[in-house]
């Protein structure tokens, strides 16, 4: 037990790890705050303009399209009907509409100028519609009264799909995304401290590691004690960072800030476990391992949308698996599902995935460490 307190003492006496975890996000957050502060509230939600060309009439599609709403009850799409395809394409070129939907009997084709978040929402809708089309048509024939229910379902599907992609111009605060990613990065910075902990328990990487290896206390116990102490400190630090974001930078995190806080703790757990694992699994010198932990949290938060919000959208389209396992993205999604959508199920899924990833990291570290002899000391 005294080792727990010694670990905490050591962290405070050599506060580099603490320093970066707090100062970096606070400074960057301040930067965001001043950069976005001016333009912040200017951009309100606006409906997505969609051009429709009915080569053959498809009333049902148009009807349903117009019924789709955002969570706040505003219509999601604004339709403009064109007689000719060329006419619609001109409008698309002139950015009057974000996409053009060609309706030709059963066929539905979406034409867009360039990929963006908004076009992806249109795409999601079209896909969902096509998937459910048969069901809706059949229901319309047999039980017309149930069609509304189905449409609502579809509506919900589209909204849930949207939680995975950053909705620039859709959120109450369009720049919240960056603050979420920032908070995610703050948690993952714990990985650099995780590496330090890992180095200090390995005989071939530090003299104290050698001393701790020849002692009769199990390695697993030593690793877990260090881990617990460091995690406690990080939980406190993240509470502080979150407080700064909420009270100083006035970020909205929805009604349940407690759960947001919990997500940052889970995030720190993943960061720490990741760092520990890097220090054990990676070949190479001390500095390689330290470097890799920095690369880890940088890349992870970049993919989470820290520097460029559209990245998660692009990944969602081309390589969705990254968004399902990248810790920073999972954290951003957890924050977002609470503060933007109030979707607890989504939040729980993200959090559990994070916990699993962290646990895997930790188990790998411990398995690798215990009972090992080193090739060279």
């Amino acid at each position: 037990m005294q080792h727990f307190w010694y670990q905490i003492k050591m962290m405070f006496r050599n506060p580099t790890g603490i320093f970066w975890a707090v100062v970096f996000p606070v400074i960057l957050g301040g930067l965001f705050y001043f950069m976005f502060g001016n333009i912040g509230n200017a951009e309100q939600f606006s409906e997505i303009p969609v051009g429709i060309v009915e080569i053959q009439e498809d009333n049902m599609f148009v009807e349903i399209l117009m019924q789709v709403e955002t969570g706040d009850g505003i219509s999601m799409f604004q339709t403009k009907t064109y007689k000719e395809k060329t006419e619609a394409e001109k409008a698309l070129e002139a950015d009057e509409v974000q996409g053009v939907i060609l309706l030709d009997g059963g066929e539905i084709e979406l034409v867009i100028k360039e990929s963006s978040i908004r076009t992806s929402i249109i795409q999601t809708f079209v896909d969902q519609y096509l998937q459910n089309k048969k069901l809706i048509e059949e229901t319309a024939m047999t039980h017309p009264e149930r069609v509304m229910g189905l449409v609502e379902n579809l509506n919900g599907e589209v909204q849930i799909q949207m939680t995975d992609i950053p909705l620039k111009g859709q959120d109450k605060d369009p720049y919240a995304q960056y603050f979420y990613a920032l908070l995610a990065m703050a948690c993952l910075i714990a990985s650099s401290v995780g590496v330090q902990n890992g180095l200090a328990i390995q005989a071939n990487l530090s003299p104290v590691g050698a001393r701790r290896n020849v002692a009769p206390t199990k390695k697993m116990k030593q690793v877990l004690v260090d881990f617990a102490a460091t995690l406690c400190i990080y939980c406190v630090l993240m509470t502080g960072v979150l407080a700064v974001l909420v009270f100083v930078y006035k970020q909205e995190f929805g009604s349940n800030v407690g759960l947001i806080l919990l997500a940052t703790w889970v995030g720190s757990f993943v960061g720490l476990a990741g760092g520990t694992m890097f220090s054990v699994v990676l070949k190479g010198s001390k500095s390689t391992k330290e470097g890799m932990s920095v690369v880890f949290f940088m890349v992870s938060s970049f993919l989470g949308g820290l520097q460029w919000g559209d990245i998660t959208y692009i990944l969602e389209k081309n390589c969705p698996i990254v968004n399902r396992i990248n810790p920073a993205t999972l954290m951003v999604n957890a924050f977002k599902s609470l503060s933007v959508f109030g979707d607890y199920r989504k939040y729980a899924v993200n959090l559990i995935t994070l916990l699993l990833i962290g646990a895997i990291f930790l188990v790998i570290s411990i398995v690798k460490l215990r009972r090992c002899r080193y090739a060279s000391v």
Partner: protein
Amino acid sequence: MVVKIENLVKRYGDLVALDHFNLAIEEGEVFGLLGPNGSGKSTTINCLLSLLEFDKGKIEVFGQEMKPDSYELKKDIGVIMQNVAVFDELTVYENIDYFCGLYVKDKTERKKLVEEAINFVELSEFRKFYPKKLSGGLLRRLNIACGIAHKPKLIILDEPTVAVDPQSRNKILEGIQNLNANGATIIYTSHYMEEVEQICTRIAIMDKGKNIAIGTKDELKAMIDLGETISLEVLELSEESMTAIQGLPHVIKMTYENHLLKVKFSKGKHNLLRLLDLMKEREIGFGGVHAEMPTLNDVFLEITGKELRD
């Protein structure tokens, strides 16, 4: 038998660091591992402690096989590594308490042990110091305290006096003898033959990963022919006289450089007397006569053909 090492082979790539190395250490010994830099002393210690993988061989401590999870054995071992191993962020007292805590869980007992260790290495004035503020010698003493606070039965010290001033060094050597007097078995590695001669009851001489000689210092010295080396300051010495000296009985080797005549004799009586008689006979003036008994360096030199230290 406290330690038994049989046919230990350790390779680093192509380099054979330990080549069928054997060792047996009895309870109560101060056992010296003497060898030049790179001879494999630290490698032996690290294998013994199950820190290093090795290619072949068997290692037993207190009669049981030593493995990374031999926690019962590890409880009774104290280790002072060649590199100082302390936390820079903890004070002298805290460091000792930290490492002692890995062996002793009971708080009051540990407190007592830590105090004893601090007094033992005479660091009580520095208990609140951080390692960075300690001089080299004091740091080494802290390193030792961290390794022995839990009162181990077997204490392993790997070159604990490297880069230590003579005052601290003597303190350390005395301390080791005290530990031994209190019942601990000691393994002491060094490339300083004087230290090893001073404190060790038995010595193994290592070279290139092999155990080339083993015994008490007297036994080791008895292994070689050399009896004594006599040196005289001589202003002038003719070729003829040199030949005469070389002709004396028991002379192994003679050198004359910078007015210093050195004659190595094999074992035998009256060597000094005969040499002095010859000097008188030939009326060669001389001063400053020294007779040296053989050192472990001579033993090493004779077995390997090179000096222990370059």
